[in-house]
């Protein structure tokens, strides 16, 4: 899939250039190491898994630090201090509302103080201090969802359902669909009613509601299968892109070898054979861990 403009170099840090060869070997090694878990839990998978947790945690740490600490505190405060020293009126826009810069700085130090209280948990796990910032976060988070989500998911969804059963220019199929939609919606709501006495009507609605729910979960099931397989195909596509002769060991060293040897020496095939060999050897010599349960 890679549009191979220039030939790949051994090691290339320029992000826009063609992916380099060492990178290709690394990607294929890690991808096939994870897939070796399908055969059996083995050191290759364990290594790949722990490298993943380490690298992922580091990446999230850097992004969270950059967005929540570096920009929101250091850069914000240094800009605010700068406007204080410049001539002209010292006003900082906070949410579009002009606020005196000194006040804006003082207020932002409130957040810094609360962050310090949060960090106290590092030294003393039972301390009461982290409760203040935690309480503030939970209050803001709850209020944000309580208001906007009630409008978007309760009020608007009920309003959107007030549609004519027979809109203009509707085919008979459209009308049937509309009836199924409206009746189905009310039945599923009926199914999720728990404190009303279960008369014949409510029981019937609940039965119909379950049918609609099952078809809904079936739709979700079908889409989930679609998504997971699309992911597998993309991995196969990336491995295929590194099976180009340009990435083969032979072309880099011994010039034009014949076709199949080139491909055999490309990262995916070579690594795959290596992993299989190691696992088979481990199985034969019985040195590997005790056979896992036939899951």
């Amino acid at each position: 899939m890679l549009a191979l403009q220039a030939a790949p170099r051994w090691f290339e840090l320029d992000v826009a250039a063609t992916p380099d060869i060492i990178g290709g070997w690394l990607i294929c090694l890690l991808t096939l190491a994870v897939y070796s878990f399908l055969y059996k839990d083995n050191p290759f998978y364990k290594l790949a898994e722990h490298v993943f947790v380490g690298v992922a945690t580091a990446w999230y740490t850097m992004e969270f630090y950059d967005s929540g600490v570096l920009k929101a505190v250091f850069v914000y405060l240094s800009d605010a201090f700068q406007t204080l020293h410049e001539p002209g009126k010292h006003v900082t826009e906070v949410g579009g509302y002009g606020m005196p810069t000194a006040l804006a700085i003082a207020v932002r130090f409130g957040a810094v103080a609360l962050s310090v209280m949060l960090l106290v948990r590092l030294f003393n796990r039972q301390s009461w201090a982290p409760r203040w910032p935690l309480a503030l976060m939970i209050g803001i988070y709850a209020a944000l969802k309580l208001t906007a989500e009630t409008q978007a998911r309760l009020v608007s969804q009920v309003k959107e359902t007030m549609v004519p059963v027979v809109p203009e220019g509707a085919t008979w199929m459209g009308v049937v669909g509309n009836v199924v939609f409206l009746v189905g919606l009310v039945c599923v709501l009926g199914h999720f009613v728990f404190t009303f006495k279960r008369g014949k009507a409510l029981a019937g609605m609940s039965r119909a509601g379950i049918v609609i729910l099952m078809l809904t979960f079936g739709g979700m099931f079908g889409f989930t299968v679609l998504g997971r397989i699309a992911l597998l195909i993309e991995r196969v596509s990336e491995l295929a892109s590194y099976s180009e002769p340009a990435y083969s060991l032979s072309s880099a060293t011994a010039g034009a070898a014949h076709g199949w040897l080139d491909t055999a020496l490309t990262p995916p095939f070579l690594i795959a054979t290596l992993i299989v060999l190691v696992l088979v050897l481990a199985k034969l010599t019985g040195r590997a861990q005790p056979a896992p349960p036939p899951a």
Partner: protein
Amino acid sequence: MKREIPILLTVICGLLVTLAYFAPAPDPARGIEPSAWQAVNSELLDWATILVAVGFLLGIANLVRINLKQIAAKHPDTPYKVVLLLSMGLFLLFGMAEMHVKWLWTPLLTHLVPSDSIERADGTRIEGYVLERGDKEVTLRTAPDYAVTKVPADSVKSITKRSLKIWIYDKFFAPLQATMFSLLAFYIASAAFRAFRARSVEATLLLAAGAIVMLGQVPLGDELTFGLATPMHAFLMGNVVKAGQRAIIIGASLGVLATGLRIVLGLERSYLSE
């Protein structure tokens, strides 16, 4: 003191953000300027952003502490835990260095961060670090003294940015995360054969709807089902799933509303008992 003030903080911030929701939106046409409500809402949200970030960094410190304790206690997976901490540490070292090029001490800068190659207007190329590239001037740190200098924008023709942080992301993080999730495609296949049984009416309906979607979303679906897949798929998703999803959404919103109200009015104490 330990319980009353946190609850007071929750109620005050919660009510402020709730009321700010109903404050009038600034509308220059009607002459409505942004009010203090917008400022309060914006500042509280920024506070929460900072605290979420700091809270996450706290979680990382915890993870490192647990792993170090396990290594010290000769946990059977010790070599793998060392690999975990090593890969995290190295990536943090190079990544953080690259994020602080403006303030970094010169020897650290030259050893940890790959330099960009800057092509000047006269075609000559120099190695250095680009800090800021505005339309009027470019801020650089170049050899030999690596002092922060500003040069006019038109003196710089093109910049080839090099990044070790993005290289590690592309070669380690991206393939590993994508492949870990793609394992599920295999698990779905084995579960399909060994566990998905049409043992009840409900399960049969579920599997049938799943098959309809699987056929309706792909090109071959229609050929194999004599053109039935797409209309059935459209009817199922446009009406039945729309009804089921909308009812689930309305139901779930009531849960969020109930929990939110209890928190904002200070009735929820479970998070204080940690």
